[in-house]
């Protein structure tokens, strides 16, 4: 049966195998003169053993189906908002990006009242920019029209 630890252990073992496969192009070196692939291969073997051990001992853990993700909608929305921020940060600039992210998270995801949402988002985006970029000189990206 697929239990939590069996699946987790097997996934870790797969990661280890992937690393081993990816290390094939790097010179391994020798014990006296370890090459760039030496440590990764060593660690991947360790992870492989660990993953297999976790999977092997993982029989008595709860079944995978017991894992619940009741908050998946929220998590996905937050993930998308962050991904958007990463894409937009250097194109739209800090202020616009953060404004849009906050409007989305507060207005759409959390369904706060529009006025509160807009006030909070505008105040946060411009306030942090003023504080960190203008006053404390932490360079933040600007978008089109110097925004």
């Amino acid at each position, binding site marked *: 049966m697929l239990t*939590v*630890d069996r*699946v*987790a252990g097997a996934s*870790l073992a797969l*990661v*280890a195998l992937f*690393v081993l496969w*990816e290390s094939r192009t*790097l*010179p391994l070196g*020798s014990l*006296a*003169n*370890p090459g*760039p*692939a030496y*440590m*990764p291969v060593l*660690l*991947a073997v360790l*992870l492989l053993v*660990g*993953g297999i*051990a*976790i999977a092997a*001992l993982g029989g*008595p853990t*709860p079944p995978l189906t017991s894992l619940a993700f*009741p*908050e*998946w909608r*929220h*998590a996905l929305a*937050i*993930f998308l*908002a*962050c*991904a958007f*921020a*990463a894409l937009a*940060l*250097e194109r739209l600039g800090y202020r616009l990006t*953060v404004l849009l*992210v*906050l409007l989305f*998270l*507060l207005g759409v995801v*959390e369904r*706060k009242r529009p006025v509160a949402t807009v006030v*909070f988002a505008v105040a946060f*985006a411009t306030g*942090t920019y003023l504080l*960190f970029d203008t006053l*404390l*000189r*932490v*360079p*933040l*990206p600007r978008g089109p029209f110097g925004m």
Partner: protein
Amino acid sequence: MLETLHNLAIGFSVALSPPVLLYAFVGCVIGTLVGVLPGVGPLAGISLLLPATFGMDATRAIVMLAGIYYGAMYGGSTTSILMRIPGEAASVMTCIDGYAMARKGRAGAALAIAAVGSYVAGSASVIGLMLLAPPLAAFALRFGPPEYFALLLFGLLVLAYMSSGSMLKSLAMAALGLLLGMVGIDQMSGYFRFAYGVVELGDGLGVVPVAVGLFGVAEILATAGQPVPPKVIEPRLRELLPSRTEWRQSVGPIGRGTVLGFLVGIIPGSAHIISSFVSYALERKLSKHPEQFGHGAVAGVAGPESANNSATSGAFVPMLALGVPSGPIPAVMLAAMMVHGVSPGPLLIRQQPELFWGFIASMYVGNLVLLILNLPLVGIFVNLLRVPYPYLYPAILAFSILGVYAVNGSVVDVWIMLGMGVLGYVLRKLDFETAPIVLGVVLAPMIELALRQSLAMSDGHYAIFFQRPIAATLLVVAAGMMLLSLRTFIRRGLDWRARMALAEKGES
């Protein structure tokens, strides 16, 4: 000795004059503000604001920079405790118990203990710096790659005490972290490893994006959507300060953390990061209630915070006594001092005693001003927790993105943070702990480099680790501790199986 006191008195007479105090105060405020951004710690804080001090007189400028330095150091603990965002790798351990304390309504206590711990550690290590700098610095320089390798093995030993869950899982997570730490250019040969053409991965996965992702972002992903949002904590005035028991519990950890941090800190390199991990492990080992760790143990905040602070002060020992930029933070401080015409080194104490002692006094003053500034601020910071979570978490996210981006001006770091957030979220669901991953990412490049440097020095002979007295001693002690922890490992392994057997019977 008498001369030292006399010089120190001169130093203080300069550092305590009202205008200089004002600069210290301004520096502390700025430092705290900058330090609140995840990742933007003392390193970035000082260099960002260095040009602003160009026109100032040297004493004022250095006092202000010392203020920024201490402020930025402390700013990181605030976010760790209140929002579970580690400002830097060293705050990861604070995130665990500090945040747990905050969730139990003891945020004020945690912040106050962190502030006092940092102050005690900072002041004590300044005294250590003053009295012991020259002999200690000479000793610190004897730490070459073989000694460093042996020291870092201690960092790995910490794993045995770090988690409350299964040891096997911790080990697997550490291996995963160490593997993640392998990404980037191999420092010995110049090969790109696992970078897939992304130049930004050349220096590897930054510890800050990894830590902020695994702790801060994962926490938000897991909590934001819960049907019942985390309840708003309304701190009452009486609860702002630590209780008598909490003070008593934190005295020992602060003392031990200070000494430990100072000793680790004087060693050149980036070993100071492990001081907070080691301190956490030490406190847990010594504690009568190790089961409280991870659920808001006072010692789990007091120890690492003190160790972290005194380690960075300890790092000033080789810088002041020898003029060696012994780590990233002293390197920036060294540069800042040189810009103001003060060049630390063996000649400084003899030729310009007033500057040397002025610096010592200004570090002390900066530290004190920070404490005076921050204790009242605890009340204000704690009120952040009154903000309902639906407003709080978008702001925390925006802060994380801002901070992680600002460290390197790199969007790739934001992606790393996001990826680690998802990883942390999934691992949490699967009941894995993520702190060992951070430790792995921190240690991996250092251990590998130290090992291969040692072998390059000895032309491939492992005997180098046993021919050098410091390295050999450290290795023997580490091996002994490893055997000891193996015992706990086996015992805990049994516990774990027993627990599972119970679960099978449907009793848990």
